């Protein structure tokens, strides 16, 4: 259930004086989809994109409202590519959460020295 997003959509509808049906037509989804969102059902990615435009909020914010973890982690994604199926990925990702960008880069350089494990 994702009530934080439901509350945001509901609040915007109330403020603008529009109905669920109007919103469904406006963003091109079925009225049932909007009903589901307002009941706390998690929408699919295309509905999220449309809601993001309607609400004027970035996708990252909507994802956070849905309980999805925060973004901005290019270094961590590279770690996975470098190390593959290796426990050090989990360790480094954990360490990186407390690091500044320079420290992250340094740790990434260290990871590049490790041999890639088999996937």
């Amino acid at each position, binding site marked *: 259930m994702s009530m934080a997003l439901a509350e945001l959509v509901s609040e915007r509808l109330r403020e603008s004086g529009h109905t669920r049906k109007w919103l469904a037509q406006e963003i091109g989804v079925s009225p049932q989809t909007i009903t589901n969102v307002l009941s706390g059902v*998690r929408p*699919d*990615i*295309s509905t999220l994109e449309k809601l993001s435009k309607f609400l004027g909020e970035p996708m990252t914010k909507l994802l956070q409202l849905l*309980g*999805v*973890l925060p*973004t901005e*982690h290019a270094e*961590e*994604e590279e770690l*996975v590519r470098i190390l*593959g*199926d*290796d*426990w*050090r*990925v*989990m*360790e*480094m*990702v*954990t*360490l990186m*959460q*407390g*690091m500044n960008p320079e*420290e992250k880069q*340094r*740790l990434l350089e*260290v990871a590049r020295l490790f041999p890639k*494990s*088999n*996937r």
Partner: protein
Amino acid sequence: MNPWWLRVGCVGRLFDNPLARVRRMLKWEAELQAEARERGMEDWVSEWGHVRLLRVRDYLMDPGYSREEDIRAVQRIAHDVFGEAMLSHYLAEVWPFHLALLKAETLLHVLTGFCWLLTGLLWTPDLKAVGVFGGLLGIVLIYVEFGWSAAAKILRRLFFVRSEFPGVNADFERRSLLKGLRWWQRPAGRVLYPLARVWRRRYSASDEPG
């Protein structure tokens, strides 16, 4: 065969089930990732992959009263980010420590509950002194439970990351651990961190062959 404290903890899973939560989230995120892949949104495919990795990491850091078969089930669901080699490492290196910590945690919860139960049962004119003693002990144990929440967080994180990396020294580790605690947990964190570090060193040394 699961240890007794995991069987006792089954009751807690009725109220808070980390496995059910992580399965639900991983399933939903996998659907979003598949949809992004179908639509050729490569950035989002990678993004969801990373979100799934963090989801699994958070679960593994504190899987609560999950059983070993639950960990294996999560690996099957999220095999793209949590491979066989990672699972083997986790079960060999981190899982035994999690079980040891959980055993202490369960004993503490049981003891606290027992003290309060005893106080309720013995609150009669004849046995009032015993009841008061039980109540006082219960209050002390509740304070211990509060302190434990900080200690457990630190210990879990310290035993989750056990490899040594250049540049990751004790000072960085302490800063980073304290940042992850709530303000009221930080004083306990400051005191406990050096002790937990020594314990980890001893624990790791005792694991080494010879």
